[in-house]
């Protein structure tokens, strides 16, 4: 967790890698998923239901996936940043038993404190989720973005 240091737009470099993290999708983590998202659609917690629908096993739901991306971005941007937009595509299911890694890098710096980012979730088999996002960061002149626009 890197939240303690506020990030300013001036110090960001295009191509800069974010500190990512990994999570093992144990049965316990899948239970935490249902608790944390309150998403009780059985394809995310009932293996028989998931297999009957043609899936290999239960898999992460949308709210967990976007929560991972949000954690990555909000840790990186610090307390004065504002997450402006997030777009993601789920290309492959993240199945119980896998370990996911959440990664990101700065794609483009834009005026008025805006930074475009690409982020993704990967397993040893490749990217399962691809994402783009924009964050608003304060500038050294002291403009805070945390209230959004």
């Amino acid at each position, binding site marked *: 967790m890197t939240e303690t240091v506020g990030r300013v737009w001036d110090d960001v470099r295009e191509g800069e890698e974010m500190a990512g*993290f990994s999570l093992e999708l144990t049965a316990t983590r899948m239970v935490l998923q249902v608790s*944390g998202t*309150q998403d009780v659609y059985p394809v995310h917690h009932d293996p028989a239901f998931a297999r*009957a629908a043609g899936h290999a096993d239960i898999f992460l739901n949308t709210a967990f996936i976007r*929560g991972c991306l949000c954690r990555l971005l909000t840790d990186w941007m610090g307390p004065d940043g504002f997450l402006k*937009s997030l777009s*993601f595509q*789920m290309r492959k299911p993240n199945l119980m038993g896998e370990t996911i890694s959440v990664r990101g890098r700065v794609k483009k710096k834009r005026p008025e404190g805006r930074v475009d980012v690409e982020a993704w979730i990967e397993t040893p088999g490749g990217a399962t989720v691809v994402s783009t996002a924009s964050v608003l960061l304060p500038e050294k002149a002291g403009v805070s973005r945390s209230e959004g626009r």
Partner: protein
Amino acid sequence: MAYDIKAVKQQWEAHETPLVWGRYPVEHEPIRRHCHMLDDCNPRFLQDGQCPPVMVDFFASLGPWPPADYDIFPLIASIPTPGDRLINLSQEFEWFRPVRVGDRLGARHKVVSVHQRGTKPDPLSVWIKTETTIVNQHEDVVAVRTNQILVHRTPEEIAAETSRA
């Protein structure tokens, strides 16, 4: 009777639901559960009462209790489709205002498009795009979310349909 995608499009595209308020205000405990599932130790969320941006639709929803459809699921379920299994393929968010513990959120949903295109799991898959507008207690828009949903049949349903044909 054959599935009539043209009639479904005509009836459902641009359909909007009324504004419905979340069952509960923005509360700390669900925010902490969200953080715990992700090992997210961010003090903005765990201690300071800021709502993680991706949780705004959670608090704008009636939630799954009592066991029922919620968020866009009742809307999706209302749209006639050959199958009833859902996969959320993609999502987009844009945020306009921060949300804090104590805020009250509500949402309205709109069907942006419905079309039919076969997929590997089901040649009769239906693609439904929705837009959700989330507002706070002042009815200021805090976020807009779009979803691309795929609705498909189970392998058993496809096999049964094939054997009948």
